[in-house]
């Protein structure tokens, strides 16, 4: 990790957090350039973002804006080429080695030869959790995502939405503080997606996890988040950070309220402003 001597100033940097809430993710001047055969691709440019414990932060933007790359940098699946990033106060690598986060991919990625129960148990097996505790945790987390009774099923016997719920249970079962979600509901139809959005919000409320969520759906981002980070492509950078202030026990009904529409409008404006870079 190369440290940048002078922290760059960015409009997107939120006000300093009160000391009581720990920063789970903290980046300064974070950049990532992929060297490709067609020349360099600036996936991330000068990204400053702070995510505090218990927040639900969404990254939204058109494809190619680097939102997934940013998530992957937090997860130590990509290495930044510039700037500084800390996860739980340490480097992403150390955070990964400390199993600080659970990652939910766009596809459920369940192993087809494992039953749902054994898929959820996979991280626990790898982390060496004893069998009895493993069983107990798997049961708890399958209940948490509403998949009790499906323990012995194989992934292909479940619908897409249920598979994604199983993958969320898998990401949560080793009790990481941070949940990283990369367009987890992107491949699902809107009805299932709405339903899972509500469930995810309940889950976040119940578990108090910090969630970093990547999406390209405005209603999804506005409904779920405590903070929306609007990004623009080429180079991937932050153009707006929008805090929201909805009740923690909100339902999908708030999507009709003026407050919701106002936030959605600001997100849309941010996305539009980002797009003008193209022209």
């Amino acid at each position, binding site marked *: 990790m190369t440290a940048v001597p002078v922290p760059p100033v960015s409009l997107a940097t939120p006000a300093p957090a009160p000391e009581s809430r720990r920063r789970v993710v903290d980046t300064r001047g974070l950049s990532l350039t992929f060297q490709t055969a067609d020349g360099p691709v600036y996936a991330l440019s000068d990204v400053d973002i702070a995510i505090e414990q218990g927040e639900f932060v969404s990254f939204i933007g058109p494809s190619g804006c680097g939102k997934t790359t940013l998530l992957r940098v937090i997860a130590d699946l990509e290495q930044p080429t510039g700037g500084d990033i800390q996860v739980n106060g340490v480097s992403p690598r150390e955070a990964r080695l400390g199993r600080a986060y659970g*990652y939910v991919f766009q596809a459920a990625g369940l192993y087809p030869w494992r039953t749902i129960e054994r898929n959820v148990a996979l991280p626990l097996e790898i982390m060496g959790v004893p069998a009895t505790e493993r069983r107990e945790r798997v049961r708890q987390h399958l209940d948490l995502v509403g998949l009790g009774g499906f323990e012995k099923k194989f992934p292909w016997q479940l619908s897409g939405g249920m598979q994604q719920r199983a993958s969320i249970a898998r990401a949560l079962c080793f009790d990481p503080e941070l949940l990283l979600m990369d367009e987890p509901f992107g491949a699902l139809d809107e009805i299932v997606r709405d339903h899972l959005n509500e469930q995810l919000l309940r889950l976040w409320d119940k578990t108090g996890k910090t969630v970093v969520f990547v999406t390209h759906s405005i209603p999804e981002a506005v409904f779920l988040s405590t903070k929306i980070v609007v990004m623009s492509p080429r180079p991937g950078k932050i153009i707006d950070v929008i805090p929201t202030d909805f009740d923690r026990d909100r339902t999908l009904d708030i999507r009709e309220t003026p407050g919701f529409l106002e936030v959605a409008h600001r997100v849309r404006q941010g996305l539009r402003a980002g797009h003008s870079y193209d022209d």
Partner: protein
Amino acid sequence: MTTEALPVVAVRRRTFGRLMAGQTGPVLVVVTAIIVLWYAGAIWLNTPWQIDLFERGGVEWSNADLVRATLAQDRPLLPAPHQIVAEMRKTIIDTPITSKRSLVFHSWVTLSSSVLGFAIGAVLGILLAVGIVHVRSLDKSLMPWVISSQTVPILAVAPMVIVVLAAIGVRGLVPKAIISTYLCFFPVTIGMVKGLRSPDPLQMDLMRTYNANRWQTFWKLRWPSSMPFLFTSLKVAVAISLVGAIVGELPTGASAGLGARLLAGSYYGQTIQIWSALITAAILAALLVTLVAAIERVTLRRMGMGV
């Protein structure tokens, strides 16, 4: 008249349709076609010699005599199926299996060395694949050798292997098994390299997020992912391991085994003996492949990947 005939036709059509819908019908059609072609070929190929025989003996013959005679020669160019069946019945069922004339005895000799060679070849093939997938320098250094090993004709290699091993005192089962191994490690290596690399990037990333070590990634992801590839290669390997064992029996004048039967048959122009040994080898190979396929079905079903 038509109204009475209709149901019969309908029933017939239904039975026929049902027969053709499954596997039995089409298989029967193909088998019948092969047998018909075979008989036609036997008559055609054996006719010149038979006419020669008739003329030398000064025998009066009709076409029916000719056909009958071409299908009953002692050393026909192409034996008829029923001659091979009779020979196989004689050497498999009517001869005690301890006798040197028993095909069961010879099959056992060949089978034991091919199964040993297959087992060694499968293990070797898997080990090579594991090395190639995990160690970059092995991928670069070993793969060309693995491929070029198969461009050398096995018929050229087999005598040297047998002779060299005999010179250092290794005889019997092992040299033949080594030739089987030489043939059958290859499909296993190729298949398993592909299989062990088959997990998609997402599944690999997942292991990385859990901070899984190589060992865990191997046993929990790469190995199970490779199972369909493994069984496909094993089916190829088990069939050619039998070929390897037979080839291993040819150059040494081995006294036992299907290869020895083929060799003896060709020395003495015993075509019926050659063909019955060939058919027996084919049946053995089919049984071995079926056995591997059965294990595959059970394994994949247990893994929830059965079809």
